[in-house]
């Protein structure tokens, strides 16, 4: 299978979907020259009408995507998570609420591509991992892929979905390589991954580790290391947080009796919190040890590498948590 870089998987998905469907267009800041890499070559292929560089007006163009979708387009908006704050009103009051509030009169097939740049000395204003805040808001579908194949397949599904989807693209993974099946090698000739299906990346019998986005590679390396100590860890990537495949998680916990959740978001009311609460409510009798959350510390992201590295989930923290559940 061919290896693809994570950011190129985004590009492939955009290219294929823009080619397939004329109503797909993309907009964002400096996307024509693709300063972040995901929109490379799209201007040349699809032209100025479908590749739009916006003014620095997130509130306006996040909302314009809603309006364009309401009248039949499929906009894909590129942004960084940290700039979503400026557009919160459009995301919440319009994108999330419009369909329900108007009794289902309109579909809003919008994709917001929100890249999370963290872990590289970007400091507090540019390191947001904000998906839990949006999980709390009904009306949004939330996707957080952890490898290039999922990125491509979920992005294509997101663009075809008839609702508002926020793709949280983990910037720590952008340079990662992974196998992405060629179109001719997948059934139907296209890589489409359905929402709401977790991916069990590694089977195990002692402890379940649910890991999200950039925490997935750390959980996998922890699992590998622990195997040497005779501890068998099952690693599950939910891939989509809304909808969340709780059945896969609950079934795994039923088997292992132990749960560790690794989440790059801040730990209070994180995705990990929600998963822990689901398992506490619905899988309590399977548990043989307290659930362990390994999420980011409840502190702003400090600039200095000496401090920043203390904040996020790491392989070591995940491995320690796994061992704790076995004590």
């Amino acid at each position, binding site marked *: 299978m061919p290896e693809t870089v994570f950011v190129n998987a985004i590009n492939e998905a955009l290219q294929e979907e823009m080619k397939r469907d004329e109503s797909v267009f993309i907009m964002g800041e400096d996307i024509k020259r693709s300063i972040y890499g995901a929109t490379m070559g799209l201007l040349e292929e699809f032209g100025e009408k479908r590749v739009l560089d916006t003014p620095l007006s997130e509130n306006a*163009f996040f909302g314009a995507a809603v*309006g364009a979708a309401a009248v039949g*387009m499929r906009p894909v908006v590129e942004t960084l998570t940290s700039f979503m704050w400026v557009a919160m009103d459009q995301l919440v009051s*319009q994108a999330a609420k419009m*369909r329900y509030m108007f009794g289902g009169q309109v579909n809003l097939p919008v994709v917001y591509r929100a890249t999370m740049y963290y872990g590289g000395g970007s400091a507090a204003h540019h390191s947001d991992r904000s998906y839990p805040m949006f999980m709390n808001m009904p*009306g949004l579908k939330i996707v957080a892929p952890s490898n290039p194949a999922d990125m491509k397949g979920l992005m294509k599904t997101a663009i075809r979905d008839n609702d508002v989807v926020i793709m949280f693209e983990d910037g720590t993974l952008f340079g990662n390589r992974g196998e992405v099946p060629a179109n001719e090698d997948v059934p139907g000739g296209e890589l489409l991954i359905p929402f709401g299906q977790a991916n069990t990346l590694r089977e195990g019998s002692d402890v379940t580790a649910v890991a999200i986005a950039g925490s997935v590679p750390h959980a996998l390396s922890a699992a590998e290391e622990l195997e040497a100590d005779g501890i068998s860890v099952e690693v599950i990537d939910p891939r989509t947080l809304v909808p969340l495949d709780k059945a896969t998680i609950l079934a795994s916990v039923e088997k292992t009796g132990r749960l560790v959740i690794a989440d790059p978001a801040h730990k209070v009311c994180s995705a990990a919190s929600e998963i822990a609460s689901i398992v506490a409510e619905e899988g309590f009798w399977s548990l043989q040890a307290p659930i362990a959350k390994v999420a980011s510390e409840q502190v702003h992201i400090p600039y200095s590498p000496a401090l920043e590295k203390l904040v996020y989930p790491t392989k070591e923290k995940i491995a320690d948590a796994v061992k704790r559940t076995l004590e």
Partner: protein
Amino acid sequence: MAIDKDLLMLMLRRMWTIRHFEETVIDIYAKGEFGGAAHPYIGEEAVAVGACVAMQDTDYIAGNHRSHGHPLAKGGDPKRAMAELLGRVDGYCKGKGGSMHLADFSVGILGESGILGSSLPVATGAALASKIKGEDFISAVFFGDGASNQGACHESMNLASVWKLPIIFICENNQYAVTTSYRDTVAVEHVSDRASAYNMPGVLVDGQDVVAMYEAVSVGIERARAGEGPSLVEGLTYRYEEHSLGLGRIRRGEYRPEEEIETWRQRDPIVIHEKRLVEQGIATQEECDAVRDEEAKEIEEALEFARNSPFPEPGDLFDDMFADAIPQP
């Protein structure tokens, strides 16, 4: 601009639809038939009607919190509007929107937003779609003098102008945001003066004159359809009632003098238009009265319809969240 009689009569009719609708709303609110807030549009009818009759059915509008008038001006069904107010299943939004979200998407409404300024980006997006698709439709958005100070308003106008989008920004300057005069919050003399900052035409219009509104918006629409970009039209108008039903704490006369209210009531948009029709021999007083009575009847029927429509069932609670449904967590 020569306007034919049918259109002039339609203007009168739609203004009466709104006037009767709003009077009925005030009445049934007082009787406790529905709750929450409701912002009467009485006195401002000419702004929405003049603008909307200048549009095609395929054009889009978006509104704000004071938006009972906008869908009705564009030909929305008063029965379904009234049913929505009463929270019934036959409402535009099946009872999920209420007074501030009386949107009839079937007549090109893109939503009415309770968050001030929030509709402007959405309407701008519809205009963007028109341009990308190479289609002929335009969009328009109604917002108040208060909302004109929102960042979304400025961002949208700038965006629409740099991209030359077919949109008309229509400021309904009723001179107050709740109790605050626009003179205390808008840094320029008129909201329309701001247009120059976005390199678009800005016109100040007598918002009590439905024909003047129609003409100004028509010019903007023509410009929009010709691919020349957006316009800002400010209709100077006045709200007769208090800001919102259910806001009992605002006392009349404390922020605007009684004489001011009286002066503006003397410039009633329906009276002005009727007078013109009769004086210019376009219609008889009897014809005008007949329109008034027909619309009164239509609203009576709308109320009857709404009262007879059932409330939603508990099982409807989770409907309409998503187009491609997902399980409740």
